[in-house]
């Protein structure tokens, strides 16, 4: 009887477990279906916003589902369709796990095929170039291929923000090896670009490229001039006007003092660092630098006066 009782208890327990499992699984499917149905009541804009929000929160699978939903809801020439494809391309490219560069490329190429003149097509071209540039650890970057890709973006989308960004990346590839010949290429390209595009948004960065080129070519006067131009053309975020110039001031002062021999400019920028960034670690070093400059100037002026006096004496004689 006890054995019978135990057997009955066991089967009751098993039955209970099965019921609970069924309830849980059904509940899960109802919930996901509900959530999905809820999602399908949203507009494209809302779905796009949710999809990107999920991407930002690294919920890549949810993000993919939402972008796919948009592509199903929209006609291929619809701008939202292209935005969704762009989203899918980025998710498959940039997600941490389950990355699929091939699939990502397919999405980007699809956009370029459907609407080659569209905004999303430009950004997609840039994404394809960046995919070539950002190789996995252990692989080497094929800079020739990367440069071709960036050039393609620049030439086929003149004036587009993606094109300007591609131009910046392209010139940077010429200065990374500190090679004089490549620096000359970057310098010529950048000068021409700034002439043709006086309103370029990346102007400050492009002047920094020029400063780097001049540094490689050891033309320190021009390097200093380009660094100052880069500083003066820095974009200020209107929402956060407190842009940090501490490194900029230090860099200009240092090059002015030790490369270009412009002690007046060096003094000016060391002082700016001291006044505008009083908690910066280098403030005291900047003060010592100003003293050093003052001492050097005093010494050299004394030498010049002696030289001038000797010259006058010689001429009189």
């Amino acid at each position, binding site marked *: 009887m006890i054995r019978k009782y135990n057997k009955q208890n066991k089967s009751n327990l098993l039955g209970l477990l099965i019921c609970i499992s069924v309830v849980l699984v059904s509940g899960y499917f109802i919930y996901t279906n509900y959530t999905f149905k809820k999602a399908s009541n949203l507009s494209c804009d809302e779905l796009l916003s949710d999809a990107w929000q999920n991407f930002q929160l690294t919920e890549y699978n949810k993000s993919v589902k939402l972008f796919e939903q948009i592509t199903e809801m929209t006609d291929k020439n619809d701008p939202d369709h292209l935005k969704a494809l762009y989203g899918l391309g980025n998710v498959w490219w940039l997600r941490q796990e389950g990355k699929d560069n091939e699939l990502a490329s397919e999405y980007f190429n699809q956009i370029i095929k459907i609407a080659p003149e569209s905004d999303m097509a430009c950004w997609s071209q840039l994404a394809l170039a960046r995919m070539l540039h950002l190789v996995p650890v252990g692989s080497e970057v094929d800079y020739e291929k990367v440069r071709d890709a960036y050039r393609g973006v620049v030439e086929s989308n003149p004036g587009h923000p993606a094109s300007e960004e591609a131009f910046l990346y392209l010139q940077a590839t010429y200065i990374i090896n500190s090679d004089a010949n490549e620096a000359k290429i970057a310098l010529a390209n950048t000068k021409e670009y700034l002439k043709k595009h006086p309103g370029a948004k990346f102007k400050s960065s492009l002047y920094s490229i020029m400063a*780097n080129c001049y540094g490689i070519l050891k033309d320190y006067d021009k390097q200093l001039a380009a660094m100052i131009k880069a500083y003066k053309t820095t974009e200020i975020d209107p929402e956060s006007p407190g842009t940090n110039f501490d490194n900029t001031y230090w*860099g200009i002062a240092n090059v002015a003092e030790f490369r270009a*021999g412009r002690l007046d400019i060096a003094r000016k920028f060391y002082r700016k660092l001291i006044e505008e960034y*009083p908690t910066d670690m280098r403030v005291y070093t900047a003060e010592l630098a100003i003293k050093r400059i003052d001492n050097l100037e005093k010494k*050299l002026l004394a030498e010049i006066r002696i030289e001038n006096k000797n010259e006058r004496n010689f001429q009189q004689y």
Partner: protein
Amino acid sequence: MLKSGLRTKMKEIFNNIKKYLPFIVIGVFFFWSLISVCMRRLEENPPGAKVIRLSHWQLEPDFQTAIDVLAKKYQKLHPDVKIIQEAIPETSYGQWCSTQLMGGTGPDLMEMGKGLPYHIWISYYNRYMVPLTQYVDKPNPYNKDNELADVPFRNTFRDGMRVGYIEELQEYMQVPMTQLSVRLFYNKTLLKKLTGLDEGPTNYRQFLDVCKKIKAHKDPTGKNYIPIAGSKFHVGMWNAKMFYPMSYSLLRYADFNRDGYLTNYEQYVAFKTGELKMNNPEYKAMFGIMREVLDNFQPGYIGLNRDEAVFTFAQERAVFIATGTWDSKGLKLQAEGVFELGVMDFPWPDQDDPVYGKFVKGPVYEKPITCVSFAVNRDGKHPDVALDFLLFMASKENNETLNKIIGWTPCIIGAETEDYLAAFKPKLRGIYPAWNPNLGGESWIRWLQLESLYKVDQISYENLCKEFEPFYIENGYKDYLEMKKDWRRGLNKNERFLCNVRVKALTADKENALSRWVKYRSLVAARQVWPEVNQKRQFKMVKDGPDEDMVKPYIYSDKLIEKVKRNLRKNMETR
């Protein structure tokens, strides 16, 4: 008969009670606790009130008192607000925050940064907290009656609210409440007894003499007095304030990228090319002063933890102890009625010191460190009120009150501190270390092992140099390559981050578009363009050394002197 009937009934009732006593007791206690909880909830959450929950891990009683005081003050101004603080133990704080945030029951104000890896906190800032960037450039309304009335909120902080800015998100996400710094505390009573001095010696040579005198005396247990109470934890403070800054002058030989700092790869390149050696006079001075000071720590200090050193000091077996503002009130309380507590600066040598004077180019720089930072939970019922209370706490007057009660240093400019904390004001002008051997990997492990042996005098300076330098040069390259791989992994992470910023710019309305695009462009340059250029240059330098014709970074070349002279002549002629 009636009596016997009643007795039977009573007996029956009594038996029933006895039979069901456990359940009755449980029931009574259950209902009692239910009522207590309900009453407490009602008290904490009066109907119609806006309840703000604030969580932190600061279990110091005065911290909770300080928050209560400010809460009461705030509630007087805003009677419809009720502020409740939740003090959670350090050890479980991280898990508690995770469950609260994920469960949607997170507090309105949360102290950030404890108990979880940094990248987890970043994800919590991203998912759950309100970005504060739009508020930080406006004045704090609670400063309207003082000199900070028109000063942008972030500029009211001694460090410019730098710690509130989260680089990974490019947003201000939290507001700090206090400032930390480190000094030497000392037992004035014991110092007077053992050396005759009324104040702690700030001159280095005098300090060493005082330590010698202290060691010569025996305490009531027959053991020699200990000049400096130390532990593994405390050595780090001495490294930063007394030892490593001795290397400052070497910056001029190895700051190849001219940014004013000596990075780990620059130090490696300098060692590899022979520009720097372990027996450079500055490094010799650094290890020399280390030896001299550490010889005054208690034996076996390297195996002790922080509390053991504090215990030694509190028991009056040691005269000096290095610690920060976080311990100041605790030490003051322990000393009360037992001995007089003094505070002094570290006895950094002056420029007249016969041995170290030539290496001392100035005082030691102290970065103002603000902390105990709170973020606003966007899922809270009243994030606007939570933010308002945060601004209230970070106003000059209230920050001063908060920190005075706790015994810490305020982080708001102009806020006053207790007299005994005046010594903790950070020195913003000074020199800093040019010593950075951390390339990770084997070379770093080897350094840590050898440095520990040196610190406990189990290896001489000569052997330290002999053992470390060749190992560092040989293995440092491998370790550097590993670091480079981490950097490359970071590029993809940055690209993902930039994608989010780009999308925000692409979808911004007219009002926000300019700001979003400016942010995007500056991040493209700062996160992807320049790091690759710099990394490539670094790698070239590590592999091949600096260019042959490269002049030492901070030396005037002959060519440069000629150029300067030419410019000066020109200026003289034009005048």
